């Protein structure tokens, strides 16, 4: 995908401990945003994630916009940055 393509990912909170997790494809989830799968339309990922073998893994999954710079996935906005990297204080 080039820089102009909007990138989206799917995130939620892990059921067992509430940790932010990201849909990593093939029904798997990861606590690292670096592992997220991205697509121009996160809605498709959301549908795929819901069908995965671990539907209990994530609570309240939703689509987020992300940046992809030189292949590195990053959050957009203060809230998603704090979710991805932890409290600032």
């Amino acid at each position, binding site marked *: 995908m080039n820089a102009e393509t909007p990138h989206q990912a799917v995130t939620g909170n892990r059921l067992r401990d509430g940790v932010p997790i990201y849909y990593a494809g093939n029904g798997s989830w990861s606590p690292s945003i670096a592992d997220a799968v991205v697509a121009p339309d996160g809605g498709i990922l959301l549908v795929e994630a819901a069908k995965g073998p671990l539907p209990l893994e994530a*609570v309240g999954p939703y689509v987020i916009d992300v940046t992809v710079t030189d292949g590195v996935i990053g959050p957009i*906005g203060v809230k998603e940055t*704090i*979710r991805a990297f932890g409290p600032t204080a």
Partner: protein
Amino acid sequence: MYRYDEFDRRFLEERTAQYRDQVRRRLIGQLSEEEFRPLRLRNGLYLQLHAYMYRIAIPYGTLSPAQLRMLAHIARKYDKGYGHFTTRQNMQFNWIKLDETPDIMADLASVEMHSIQTSGNCIRNTTSDPFAGVTADEIEDPRPWCEIIRQWSTLHPEFSWLPRKFKIAVSASEKDRAAVHIHDIGLYIVKNDAGEVGFQVLVGGGLGRTPIMGKVLREFLPKKDLLSYLEAALRIYNEYGRRDNIYKARIKILVQALGIDKMREEVEAEWAQMDHTPLDLSDQTIAAIYEHFAPPAYPAPDAQGEATLATAIAADAKFARWVKHNTHPHKQPGYAIATVSLKPLGKPPGDITAEQLDLLAELSERYGFGEVRVTHEQNVVFPDIPRGALPVFYAEIAAAGMGTANIGLASDIIACPGLDYCSLANARSIPVAEKLGEHLAAREEEIGPMKIKISGCINACGHHHVGHIGILGVDKNGEEFYQITVGGSADEQSAVGTIVGRAVPSDEVNSAVDKLLDVYVKHRSDGEDLPATYRRIGAEPFKEAVYGAR
């Protein structure tokens, strides 16, 4: 303190067993999140940005040493070694795992604590004056009434599914330290012309996106009628309160829509027709509850106590400053009420470590009668310290990082967890509080008494509307900005602050607050707090200072 009886203990055991099974079924998929969410919320468990947040009720803010040690244990075993005292005299743990919450609930039950009704559309923890029972300026101890309300409202079948949450506060002093006017129902213990003690009942106070001060529903309510009258008021709310719009569901909106006169008419009519008998409070019932709050047998103070204190004050300027700002007169000669600040400069307001909790437990046994009070301003009160013991008490808390002498000053800032933790927040509160507190510390003696309150969203958990200076975090196209209000007050002169102008970016908050404080210091008359100066000179000088002349 109130002690649980066999009924209380059995109830908590049963509730814990029910909840343990609910969590088990959720984890194996027998319950969906939609089904489980109301169950966990009923037990004080929220899902926040990084983890589950568990909110524990501290009835009217009172904690025993065993309870303090249990909170320390929970912080160590289930969290990251610390907890957070909230603006409603509760405690929150921010790093909780769902599968461990039944064990936490069982641990809490072992020390007569729980998390029930700390969330959901029910009657929440009743809050009170942290100086209750020990301050000379109260008519009588409000804690027994909080306990009576707690027992009545816990799992009340008619009021477990109200249109929205419902908060009650009780105060008995001329000086309101319980923010009574911002509660759904506020109760002032008063004397009528005949000298009888009863309640002035306020209704419809609240903050959030529609801040409103409570209005007088009844000037005087006899003690025996408290529960029947509350029941009548809640019935009217339950029947007419809006359930179609969450933003208009609080009782304040109903009171605003009906008008206080119509609201009063409805409540009085309901009260007149209902059977009071089951709810009438007999003298014996009241006395039985009061027994739990009987004053301790205060030993005669050490004859050398005052001399010890005077010597220490003369020798240590830091201690002298702490005594000046962090102690309050006690009704018992020779004793003091001491407030331990949980606002060390540059640290999150209201946070406390497991080690600090353990130390407070030990000190409450050594220098008091085994009791502390959590304040809605996120500090901890020791109600009964011999004045002669203040120097050693101070030395112990100061060594543990709790000796900041700033109670009621500019760096004693209330702040909600904000966007660092809360899924509802629009902006961060804690870093703003940390930086502002550090910035203002150098001039807080010059400023004098000051209430600065910060919220990370319009839900106003940081009570920003009623800060002398209030700061509200807002989101503008993904960036954090802060809207500033001036002239608010949460005490008996309660008022909602006025917005001074457009929101400012976070790096301009300190300078904006400085300018507001400059106006206050320049224009104040002797003894005036900022809200009084604001009422006298109006908003314009404050607005002009921050944004320039129009």
